[in-house]
């Protein structure tokens, strides 16, 4: 597994955790049907904040851990070649495209939910769900491309 694959796997796992956290907190609101703006704003703020933090911290930690593992394995400190090349960039672009399509479809579904009588807060909650889902699908697409060897 290459450095990029490990990085994407960390990103995928963190996005999955964020998705589970969001859904666990959103579900009681959906069930009760009480769309209280204050509660939802708090939840959205947490999700956005955690997403940014996890992305930054996850990337730094992965880098440090991989350097340590590499140094222990080779029994000497060498600057590991954590480079990205044109193939990595192409795979990242394809992953971004998949994320973009997923998010676009999600926004469309959310807007239709609003048109068919759902409250506006539900529409925005759904957009949040699809934004995290888009990240997950994009990560999976990238891992699949790396596994296939493209």
């Amino acid at each position, binding site marked *: 597994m*290459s450095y990029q694959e490990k990085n994407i796997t960390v990103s995928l796992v963190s996005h999955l955790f964020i998705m589970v956290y969001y859904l666990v907190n959103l579900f009681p609101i959906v069930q009760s049907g009480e769309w209280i703006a204050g509660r939802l704003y708090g939840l959205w703020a947490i999700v956005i904040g955690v997403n940014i933090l996890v992305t930054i911290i996850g990337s730094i930690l992965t880098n440090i851990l991989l350097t340590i593992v590499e140094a222990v394995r080779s029994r000497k400190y060498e600057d590991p070649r954590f480079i*990205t*090349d*044109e*193939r*990595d960039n192409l795979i990242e672009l394809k992953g971004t495209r998949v994320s973009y399509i997923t998010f676009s479809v999600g926004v469309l579904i959310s807007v239709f939910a609003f048109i068919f009588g759902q409250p506006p807060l539900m529409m925005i909650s759904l957009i949040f769900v699809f934004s995290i889902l888009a990240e997950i699908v994009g990560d999976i697409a990238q891992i699949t491309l*790396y596994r*296939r*060897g*493209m």
Partner: protein
Amino acid sequence: MEKRQVRNNIRKLRFQNNEMTQEQLAEKVGVTRQTIIALEGGKYAPSLELAFRISLAFGLPLTEVFSYEAETESTSK
């Protein structure tokens, strides 16, 4: 239009160049080893710049490293 595919002799040329490893070639041309594996397996067509860098690494003209051939049954799948 006839379907064509970029093919290469990288594996053969590596062995002819003192059994150069994939890692050594990757370092020489500034890509990851995974990219060299994908190139050798015919799963990835390089950019023109990378193709030139690989040719320079072997000290050969581009056409002796890469070719543009018609896709066969096995490669088109």
